[in-house]
């Protein structure tokens, strides 16, 4: 599909236009705080693309932390109205890949989750390639790229006040059909390569997976989790984590069935009504999270559920680094014998 060049003015016009037709979400500086968040915008002026990643990923725009599943009044229940059309502008390639993973998880393997699907069908993804990685980024180590297009409709690369626009889908191509053709060739790829060079080496995720396949009982887990305090910071900020709880709220005959994010790091997550808890220990919960990212979802839907965004590294109150965990596991777990 034809690449185009968009000037800053051109992009500003497009944003204003999109905002008239539906919701546009883009990174915006979070008040007095030193980070950016996806917020609804009506013009390009409000946005701030200066950070590599937003504090929270874009996952909440498709899988909100609090989502109404049913509303009820006087004993009658109804489904919520269909969500609005939305454009997510400035999502980084890792976050877009994470949503592609979630899409596979929520709409594949058996039943389709209708709430996620309804939002996915109404969302246009306009990505922003990364020119300089953050210290905590490692997308290239887990199969991604700073200019990756997975999950996107359109990828923009900042080429100094102008944007190179690469359509990924027809939907993306249509968005920029009126923009001029570029004369610049591979500049974007060069920028991406330069960015990727600054990132860590690829993890041999296949070898790690083979080790995890037989490493469930290995004593290495006894040490790995000790510092972990079993909070939900890593899972809630992780763009691929998808667990939820369902809860009813009711007052004077009106209410709603709501789902809220949940975390496998919380003790009550797996506790039966009898009090029996298959993952009673902090160790087993930490292990579950790591196993889920690098083994379980590979078994389930064929891919890792870590896209290397680094949020869990930045926010872990115990200073735990998933890259280090992976390194220790790869080093200490014996490689499983080939399965017959």
């Amino acid at each position: 599909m034809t690449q185009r060049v968009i000037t800053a003015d051109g992009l500003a016009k497009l944003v204003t236009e999109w905002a008239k037709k539906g919701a546009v979400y883009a990174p915006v500086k979070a008040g007095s705080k030193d980070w950016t968040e996806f917020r609804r915008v009506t013009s390009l002026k409000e946005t701030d693309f200066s950070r590599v990643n937003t504090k929270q990923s874009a996952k909440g725009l498709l899988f909100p932390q609090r989502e109404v599943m049913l509303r009820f009044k006087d004993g009658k229940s109804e489904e919520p109205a269909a969500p609005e059309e939305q454009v997510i502008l400035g999502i980084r390639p890792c976050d877009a890949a994470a949503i592609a993973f979630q899409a596979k998880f929520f709409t594949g393997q058996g039943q389709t989750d209708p709430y996620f699907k309804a939002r996915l069908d109404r969302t246009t993804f306009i990505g922003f390639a990364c020119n300089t990685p953050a210290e905590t980024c490692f997308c290239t180590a887990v199969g991604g790229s700073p200019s990756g297009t997975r999950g996107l409709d359109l990828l923009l690369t900042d080429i100094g006040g102008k944007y190179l626009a690469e359509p990924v889908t027809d939907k993306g191509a249509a968005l920029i059909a009126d923009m001029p053709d570029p004369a610049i060739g591979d500049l974007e790829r060069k920028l991406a390569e330069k960015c990727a060079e600054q990132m860590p080496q690829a993890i041999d995720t296949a070898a790690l997976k083979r080790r995890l396949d037989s490493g469930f009982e290995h004593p290495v887990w006894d040490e790995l989790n000790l510092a972990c305090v079993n909070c939900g910071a890593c899972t809630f900020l992780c763009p691929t984590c998808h667990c939820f709880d369902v809860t009813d709220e009711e007052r004077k005959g009106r209410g709603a069935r709501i789902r809220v994010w949940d975390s496998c790091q919380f003790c009550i997550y797996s506790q039966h009504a009898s009090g029996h808890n298959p993952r009673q220990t902090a160790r087993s919960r930490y292990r579950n999270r790591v196993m889920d990212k690098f083994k379980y979802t590979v078994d389930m839907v064929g891919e890792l559920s870590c896209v290397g965004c680094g949020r869990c590294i930045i926010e872990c109150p115990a200073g735990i680094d998933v890259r280090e965990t992976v390194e220790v596991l790869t080093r200490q777990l014996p490689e499983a014998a080939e399965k017959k």
Partner: protein
Amino acid sequence: MSREEALRKRARELLESKQVVMVVGHRAASTKGKAQPAFIAKPEDAESLIFDETCGQNLAGHLLKVKHLGKIAVVTKGCDSRSILVLLKEKQLDRAQLHILGVGCEGVKEDGKLSDSCITCEYPNPIVCDEMLGEPAPGDRLQTLNPKPQTGELTSDERWRELSEDVSRCIRCYACRQVCPNCYCPVCFVDASQPALVGKTTELSDNMVFHIMRALHMAGRCVECGSCARACPMGIDLMKFNRKAAQIVKERFNVVAGVKEDDAPALTVFDPNDKQEFIR
């Protein structure tokens, strides 16, 4: 010998002579400016211990995870020692099973800036310890760096607005509760299901109930180490709640949490002569 060298040397000696089974301290995390709690069981691993301005985690709570192993040595700055005292009074720890390695603290940093709770800290040196490593920190230096935050002087409307703005960002990850050395209830009130006391959503009302109830549970027990505020990924200054509660406890009961070995916890004693009418 620097303080860090002394720390490593003593940790190694204690482990080699089997006086303790583990030393709980800090080690450098892989990300710049961050430390990680370290659980050292082998003498040779004592080399990884550090103590500097990145070591903001309160280690007292981590002791609860390893106390079943035997006698533990713990690297203890002023606030850690206050938490240890609270835990001792609440019968969560056994003094005979602890070897307290005291360190004077010059304040810990978060994103390169001195943490708010360190600016106002009045107890940079351990209240209890078995030995001091290095020189004690000057006791009155920190609080003169900056005037104390003025939350107390806002009107209640202003206070509500400010707290609501903060608390509305909360994502209920419970990092604040989990890092808190004095939050150790087997079933936290937010997790209780019969009856469910707090809504599970991130609506402002649910968030506010969580934070107010937590602050009340911490009143008279919070040692103002600031761990919760530093842990919060959403930059919520939880110390606004905790400082206020501590201030009230001090005014009404003349008790400051974890600074005396022999006083009773403010809110868990029954006294027929209590000034408060409602208690009788």
